[in-house]
């Protein structure tokens, strides 16, 4: 299925200061789009708008050609958003955290899949350890395990490489490209330079 997220004349004003204005953006299936720009230029805000969390912006959003407000349910059913904060409960084990996400995304309760997802992200052996006892990088990996766990077409990732070691970064880069090749699309902000790829597109902000 071909997907298309479209932004027209997007602008965001925060207390009389324009973060960005008149932004046109097209994101299609099979693309990795990297938003870049200096600190405070509104990358996170843009991702929050594009993922449908913020409503006070100017301009219009379209999902597969339909206005976002009418296509919201379909959009959310195809979206996987990973924010600045990983959204991981420190009091729960990685397995329990993923179980909640599986239910939240409307997937079938399947422990086999959760174990596989944790293994593929390199957390085999830590499934039952309270997440609070894991390192920051491992906690981030629990969140990243959702990429394998829940099959969603559109990935919106805010600084996903934070606290991840070099091997993990290489794996994640490969995963992003593979996802785009398989027909998904990835929208990502990062200060880390992604390796050149025909699928990669850079959008400068600010």
């Amino acid at each position, binding site marked *: 299925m071909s997907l298309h997220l479209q932004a027209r004349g997007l602008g965001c004003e*925060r*207390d*009389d200061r324009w973060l960005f204005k008149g932004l046109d953006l097209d994101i299609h299936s099979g693309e990795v789009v990297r938003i870049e720009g200096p600190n405070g230029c509104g990358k996170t805000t843009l991702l929050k708008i594009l993922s449908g969390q913020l409503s*006070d912006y100017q301009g219009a959003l379209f999902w597969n050609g339909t206005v976002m407000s009418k296509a919201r349910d379909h959009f959310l059913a195809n979206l996987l958003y990973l924010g600045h904060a990983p959204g991981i409960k420190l009091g729960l084990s990685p397995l329990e955290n993923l179980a909640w996400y599986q239910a939240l995304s409307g997937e079938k309760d399947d422990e086999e899949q959760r174990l596989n997802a944790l293994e593929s992200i390199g957390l085999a052996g830590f499934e039952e350890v309270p997440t609070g006892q894991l390192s920051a990088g491992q906690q981030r990996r629990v969140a990243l395990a959702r990429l394998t766990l829940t099959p969603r077409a559109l990935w919106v990732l805010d600084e996903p490489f934070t606290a991840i070691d070099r091997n993990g970064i290489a794996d994640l880069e490969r995963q992003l490209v593979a996802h785009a090749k398989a027909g998904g699309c990835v929208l990502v902000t990062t200060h880390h330079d992604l390796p050149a790829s025909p699928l990669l597109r850079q959008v400068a902000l600010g």
Partner: protein
Amino acid sequence: MWAFIHKLGSPRWFYGMSAKMQPWFWAAAVLLLVVGSLWGLAFAPADYQQGNSFRIIYVHVPAAFLAQSIFIAMAVSGLVFMVWKIKVADMAATVMAPFGAVMTFVALFSGAVWGVPTWGTWWMWDARLTSMLILLFLYIGVIALRSAFTRRDSGSRAASVLTMVGVINIPIIKYSVDWWYTLHQTASFTLTSRPTMPTQMWLPLVIMLLGFYCFFIAITLMRTRSEILRREASKRWVQELLTDPMLSTATKKAR
């Protein structure tokens, strides 16, 4: 209808329109308040039971009415702001809140003072006074919540939600406080409930009520205009208004 709503919602249009209407409301407010005060203070007959202390009714009741009406007006503005994203509605709600709190305070103060000759005490947990006190807390809550947000837009929307929740609660609070009061009734009669009032008594009350409402509309228009200027200061029409001396005096006088 839609065109009208959006015209009304345009700060620029509202700024011009309110300039035209404002003087009339000020004039009406002054006229009604002066006539009502003279009539109520000097010409209305004294009450056979309460004597001249009953003249406090002419400030207590209008203030209490206004206090409740302003909260409802804020809730309606909040709804308009949330549903149609009309910013003028929120600006009006912003400036209404402090005046509403002042009116609630006036109602409380005049009620407390009235209590001395009537019940022999400064404070009685009378149903009306208790409801007013709770209303004052609601006003303070809305004002505090709005100012607690660093982003004005979030503050506006949070205050709108709280006002709407409050306005649904006000009748429930009023009903339960009335019920609670009848259960524990200690005073022989409430301040303002009386079987019949001669025309000479209630006519000044109506005039004072109208005067208070006109005053409220006038001051809301005036302060909303300031709020528009403050929030739209960077817009071009405001800049033109400010830098063109001819235009700014013209809008002040002619409109």
